[in-house]
């Protein structure tokens, strides 16, 4: 049986990790390579890196970071942010990424999913979506949640699968930042309609939220979070021991 995956997400700006990183006893923890090694040792099943830079120069710094992470950490690595063409896929895949996630660029040009899946394989293409309820309808937002579209999230997930996406990251904007738990209702709505893996994102505030996720949204394959891991409020090692004791299949690391 496949293990449920726990995935920390690192936002990288100018070669450093940003967003609430607060580790005691670890110096220079905003170094993405150090943090990646730390999470790997703690039992993270995968790492997601978002490139939140704008300039071409900083983009170079990001690919350099990926290259160095891939030399040290031997678990799957996903890259997102600033991916809008096959050249972008090529650039990050050549620098150590195993999967590439697209979001706004796929809204603008859905065929990017198909072209990338044909060239690199379905398993390589992740469709990431920011979703919020608008008049009770799960609605997709672009540009990091700033632009409302008229796209229904469940239909967009199905379309993404048809085009060749191998995985979906479903980020609930309603749950994000509130720390009240994952958006079970939204996850179930999407999981019911697709057969590819779905990664839950947004809302994790404590250890039991992950149990609730896998218990109440059994179609979800993974839980993704950033700040609660960075702030060390939740240790991945303890989280996995807790899930294992609660009967959720997880990959445990021998300490």
């Amino acid at each position, binding site marked *: *049986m*496949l*293990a449920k*995956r726990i995935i920390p997400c690192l936002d990288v700006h100018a070669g450093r990790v940003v967003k609430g990183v607060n580790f005691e006893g670890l110096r220079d923890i905003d170094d993405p390579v150090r943090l990646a090694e730390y999470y*790997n040792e703690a039992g993270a*099943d995968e790492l997601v890196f978002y490139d939140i830079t704008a300039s071409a120069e900083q983009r170079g710094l990001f690919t350099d970071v990926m290259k160095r992470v*891939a*030399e040290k950490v*031997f*678990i*799957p690595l996903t890259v997102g942010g600033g991916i809008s063409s096959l050249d972008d896929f090529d650039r990050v*895949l*050549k*620098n*150590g990424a*195993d999967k590439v996630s697209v979001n706004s660029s796929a809204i603008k040009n859905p065929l990017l999913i198909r072209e990338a899946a044909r060239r690199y*394989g*379905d*398993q390589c293409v992740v469709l990431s979506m920011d979703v919020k309820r608008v008049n009770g309808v799960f609605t997709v937002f672009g540009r990091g949640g700033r632009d409302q579209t008229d796209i229904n999230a469940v239909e967009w997930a199905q379309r993404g699968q048809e085009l060749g996406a*191998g*995985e979906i990251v479903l980020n609930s904007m309603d749950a994000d930042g509130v720390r009240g738990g994952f958006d079970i209702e939204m996850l179930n709505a999407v999981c019911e309609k697709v*057969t*590819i*893996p779905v990664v839950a994102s947004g809302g994790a505030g404590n250890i039991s939220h992950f149990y609730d996720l896998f218990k109440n949204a059994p179609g979800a*394959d993974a839980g993704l979070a950033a700040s609660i891991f960075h702030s060390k409020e939740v240790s991945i090692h303890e989280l996995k021991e807790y899930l294992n004791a609660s009967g959720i299949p997880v*990959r*445990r*690391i021998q300490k």
Partner: protein
Amino acid sequence: MIAIVDYGVGNLHSISGAVKTLTDDVVITSEKNALMNTDGIILPGVGAFPDASEKLFKSGLGDVIIARAKAGAPLLGVCLGMQLLFEKSYEYGEHKGLSLLKGEIAPMANDLTQKVKVPHMGWNALSIQKECALTKYIQNGDYVYYVHSFYAKGLDCLNAGSEYANLFVPGIVSSGNVFGCQFHPEKSGSVGLNILKAFLEVTENA
């Protein structure tokens, strides 16, 4: 020296990076001559069987790999590289493999009786069936990372595998000096590195 075969499919950085944490004596090569003088050969692969098999045979690399394996050189196939070690595959028609291991590659979807996701992607636990050199540093229940839609059937060289719905997916196979991993050891954390370490030991003792 360990040679990682570059026959134009997939990303070789991860596998070479993982091997480099264990030894500096590794080279990525597409040269037939380079394969003649190595202590061990790693055959990686991501993508579809027909394309990979055609590239291997057309380049002549396939025949060199067969000759070296038959002469006793340690060989490790990874993911699609493992599938290529078998006699044939039914991915997009029927295509022949290197025939170094007995068995064939078939779509998992045809044999699954429960509704589960294909590809079989993620971390799954290994159940060791028969110890071999590659299982030296791993334990029953260790997790490894799989990404595949086809699997080996009708084989007589199973060492370890993982349960997926009603199927038992061969994860580690071997026959003498020929080894294969369906999962990605280079993406399976410390467990994967230990499997590669065990393979390097085979090459040192060959």
